């Protein structure tokens, strides 16, 4: 019993530390940067949503299907949330799940024809279907707001001031409550994604990538599993979309375009997709690069292109291959007292 407990702690302390650091981020930022801290907090919020998005994309790639319409699925979540909140005044605890359900439905419709294709055809097919959805957003003035999109999306609300459960999300000066909401939802999504990755379904998806014919022969319906993973990935992408819709307060079709999709692919490729931690590292490092290159705005595509190519050439497994190397290095440093 004791042993399993210590194993548990050993496995989870990095994740627990990161969550605790994130939980105290508003205070830390305020101490370091004062009022500028709030701006940095917005970045952190976007980062959390991006992590959920990248992680859901990584799940999608475990079957070997690299889609080009993942941003569209996120956009589905964002648009549904925005429409419900803006036009119908639906509270956030309903918009987020309803948006997720709608996105799953759309994912299913997209996945039906795509599941009949593999490889390059899948890649291009997903691009075409995604652009089709984006075209609808762009052309339909109601309810999607055409190419100018939707603005003035109301902030989430929980109770009136005076209720014991009241949480103030509305303040523009102090966004830490909104930040905590984002953090809770992001951690929830990431834990579910981790459980999925290690579950029987996660194994099935990885085996489909490895040998789909063999999977058929031992009783896995490959087509059904590929549709399922598309819907599951869409569900989590939608959560990220809802978060971003509330954070930005305004969305338009260009937010979910091809360029964003390329950035998503860069995150995942640079981080690696073999383990759960790859996309986390990828998003973290690339967001950092993105912020550091803010002064050279127009050179960003060039910089990211160079990063993508050099990571493919010098580190094809992604940054995640460094994890076992560094842990081994530190273990050697400490000495081999620890018996694994």
């Amino acid at each position, binding site marked *: 019993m004791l042993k399993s407990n210590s194993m548990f702690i050993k496995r989870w302390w990095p994740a627990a530390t990161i969550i605790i650091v994130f939980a105290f981020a508003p205070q830390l930022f305020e101490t370091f940067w004062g009022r500028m801290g709030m701006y940095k907090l917005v970045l952190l919020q976007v980062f959390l949503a991006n992590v959920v998005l990248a992680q859901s994309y990584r799940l999608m790639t475990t079957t070997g299907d690299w889609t080009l319409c993942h941003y569209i699925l996120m956009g589905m979540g964002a648009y549904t949330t925005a429409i419900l909140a803006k036009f119908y005044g639906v509270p956030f605890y309903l918009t987020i799940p309803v948006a997720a359900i709608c996105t799953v439905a759309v994912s299913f419709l997209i996945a039906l024809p795509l599941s009949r294709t593999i490889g390059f055809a899948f890649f291009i097919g997903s691009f075409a279907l995604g652009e089709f959805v984006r075209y609808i957003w762009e052309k339909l003035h109601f309810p999607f707001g055409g190419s100018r999109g939707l603005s003035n999306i109301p902030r989430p609300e929980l109770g009136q001031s005076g209720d014991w459960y009241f949480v103030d999300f509305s303040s523009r000066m102090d966004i830490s409550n909104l930040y905590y909401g984002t953090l809770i939802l992001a951690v929830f999504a990431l834990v*579910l994604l981790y*459980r*999925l990755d290690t*579950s*029987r*379904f996660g*194994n*099935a998806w990885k*085996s489909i990538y*490895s*040998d789909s*014919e*063999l*999977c*058929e*022969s*031992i*009783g*896995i*319906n*490959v087509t059904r599993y590929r549709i*399922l993973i598309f819907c*599951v990935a869409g569900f989590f992408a939608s959560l990220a979309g809802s978060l971003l819709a509330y954070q930005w307060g305004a969305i338009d079709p260009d937010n979910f375009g091809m360029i964003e999709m390329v950035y998503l692919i860069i995150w995942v490729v640079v981080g690696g997709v073999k383990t759960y931690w790859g996309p986390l590292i990828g998003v973290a490092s690339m967001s950092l690069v993105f912020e550091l290159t803010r002064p050279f705005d127009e050179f960003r595509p060039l910089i990211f292109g160079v990063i993508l190519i050099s990571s493919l050439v010098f580190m094809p497994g992604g940054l995640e291959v460094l994890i076992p190397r560094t842990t081994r290095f530190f273990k050697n440093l400490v000495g081999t007292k620890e018996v694994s």
Partner: protein
Amino acid sequence: MSFLSVKKLSKHFGGLIANNEIDLEVEKGEIRGIIGPNGAGKTTFFNVISGFYQPTSGSVTFKGQNISGKHSSEISKLGVVRTFQRAALFPDFTVLENVVIARHLRANNSLVSAIFGNQKKAEEANVKRSAEIIEFLGLGDEIESLASNLSHGHQRQLGVAMALATEPELLMLDEPVAGMNSGEKAVMVGMVKKIRDEWGVTVLLVEHDMRTVMNLCDRITVIDFGEKLAEGTPDEIKNNDKVIEAYLGADDSVA
């Protein structure tokens, strides 16, 4: 009612008739071999029964249930499981993991219970049973090795182990000794016999290697040019004129 019964099964690829109205009856507990010269349509026949191809016409019934035209994964769930000519396995996993995966991919839990439930107990039972299967097939020494590091013979054995892991009633082996040396062949023959004798699994196999087929099978079906040529015990087949003609050519032909 026979165990597996194939009636007038045909498979056409455009104008090419790969299988033409083939009948086959397999009894429970027998080892049945399917042989024939190259390009006779054996593998096509195999693929149609296991659901990888859709039949053009005819029917396949397994234990009274019509399985022709069903999806291959469904057929496998009903207890008809096949192996492949190539060494089909998950190369990044160990032998034990391969068999465990083959087992628990079929577990019937939902997405929600996969995320929230605790499958520790079921998982332990799975691992135990998998180790048992590996031990039974004589792969016990390799249980912790990576599948990609195994020898060809062991990889093919692992393929059979994975098929067995799904607890089939009819095991379909596609050229089980292809590319093996004589030692490995003997091991495989012993293994198949053991599977039938001790676990009562019915075996249907396609094979080129005559010695193996004659040693292993209770009855043999010969296919040539997509049609059934002969059927009988190994001795009957050895002395069947039509079979000899198909393999060696007729008397008057120039060798």
